[in-house]
């Protein structure tokens, strides 16, 4: 269980990026976080990853406070961020330095096969296409078997076809060990395809606005009317989140937030 309790982040320049964000996320749940630009999605993700510390509030994983990167939490960035001086196989095995060489080789080989890049094991990252590189990044994050995998707009730099392909692929990989996935995205389609629950954030300062449960069986058909319905309700929530005349759902909760209006 990943618990976010009133997580706030104010940057040194005074910008409040995130205000009292609370959520509880069960093991194995797939969460999509969506919202307008500047709504603090990435700030939230970096706080969960332990890359940045929240100004106030806590992030706890199974009762353990997260203040720095944690072995059970993996992250995939918008760019693949592969190390250019390591082969594809060594990139995937980067987080497995503690294992013996044999064990590492075995795990890496299995991961390569799983992402369909066995033939690229000895290639350099520069020789990969964008989609292949991101698949290597996914394998690198998954191979240490994290409990929570964070994804920061992981497919936004790819073309639509590769993106849909990788979304399906991600679900496929997720089914192996069923970690918690927290995906930041600005793509409504992506959120509805992947998530059990969509958290809609509203900007300035970034906070939780609404959440929508997606009760759709997988695999999901992107063209079914039900899918369209969910897409419409996420879009509607997104629209309302950007409309300043709509008050926060829980505006009465904190005096700080009420005063902000």
């Amino acid at each position, binding site marked *: 269980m990943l618990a976010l309790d009133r997580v706030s982040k104010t940057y040194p320049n005074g910008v409040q990026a995130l205000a009292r964000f609370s959520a509880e996320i069960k093991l194995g749940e797939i969460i999509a976080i969506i919202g307008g630009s500047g709504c603090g999605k990435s700030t939230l993700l970096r706080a969960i990853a332990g890359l940045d510390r929240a100004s106030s509030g806590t992030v706890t994983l199974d009762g353990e406070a997260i203040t720095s*990167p944690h072995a059970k939490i993996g992250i995939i960035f918008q760019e693949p961020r592969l190390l250019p*001086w390591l082969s594809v196989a060594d990139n995937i095995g980067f987080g497995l*330095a503690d294992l013996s060489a044999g064990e590492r080789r075995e795990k890496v080989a299995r991961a390569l096969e799983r992402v369909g890049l066995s033939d690229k094991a000895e290639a350099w*990252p520069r020789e990969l296409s964008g*989609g292949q590189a991101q698949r290597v990044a996914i394998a690198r994050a998954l191979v240490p078997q994290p409990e929570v995998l964070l994804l920061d707009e992981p497919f936004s730099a790819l073309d639509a076809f590769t993106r849909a392909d990788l979304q399906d692929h991600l679900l496929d990989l997720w089914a192996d060990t069923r970690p918690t996935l927290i995906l930041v995205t600005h793509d409504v389609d992506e959120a509805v395809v992947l998530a059990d629950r969509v958290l809609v954030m509203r900007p300035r300062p970034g906070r939780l606005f609404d959440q929508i449960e997606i009760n759709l069986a997988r695999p999901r058909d992107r063209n079914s009317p039900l899918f369209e319905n969910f897409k419409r309700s996420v879009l509607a929530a997104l629209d309302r989140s950007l409309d300043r005349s709509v008050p926060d759902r829980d505006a009465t909760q904190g005096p700080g937030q009420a005063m902000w209006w």
Partner: protein
Amino acid sequence: MISDAPALQQSSEQADSAAAPSRLARYARPMLGILLPLILALGWELVVGLGYSNGRLVPPPSRIFATILELARSGELTRHIAATLWRVGLGFAFGVVAGTVLGAISGYWSLARRLLDPTVQALRAIPSLAWVPLFILWLGIFETSKIALIAVGVFFPVYLGVMGAILSVDRKIVEVGRVFRLSGPAMIRRILLPAVLPAYVVSLRVGLGLGWMFVVAAELIGASEGLGYLLLDGQQLGKPAQILAAIVIFAILGKLTDWLIEVAATPFLRWQDAFGRAKGA
């Protein structure tokens, strides 16, 4: 993977188009570079051979090679080359060690950079030859002052190269190291060192070039052996062939040592996606 098919196809096309002219290109391109000096040398040889010039001030290639052979036969050449190589090697080693250590400290630790860098930059602004009189007073006229001068010349490019390279390491790549919870030493070994290496090799090569420059200065100032001494001796005794012979040997040694660094670094830099590499292969 349908989405990847165009990329694969493209790269195989590139490989095909590169394969056909490569045999010719591989030998023809370096040959093209040799063509001009070769024509000039042969032309001058011909001019002197046909008696249009006596070649006393500008000796033809044959006379330069004769001088080199003569020096080699008498064992003089080995002695001079050894002396010069020894000085360059030692000065280069000291300069590289000092430049690497101080550059790494300044690059890694911003407090040290604020303390140290302004002074180093101020010292860098001094033309290095201005140190010569002081080094001679401090360290004597023998080997120590020469090696110190060479080390100073090597130090600055290495220092700047290392510091700049560390400062420009991609924050995003460092973050990958943080996500995998690398300790300080592991971060240096697995992220910073490989990231810095390409720029470091360049700074070593620049440093070595300056080392060769300063060994000439040091040996011109006062030496009883070394290639610089051959230059001075040739000037004082009016032997242009000896001067040119020393210059030719300087060129060969400089190119050779530079090539050694390049060859030593190549296995570590194969991953680079460099412009020149893609075209050259």
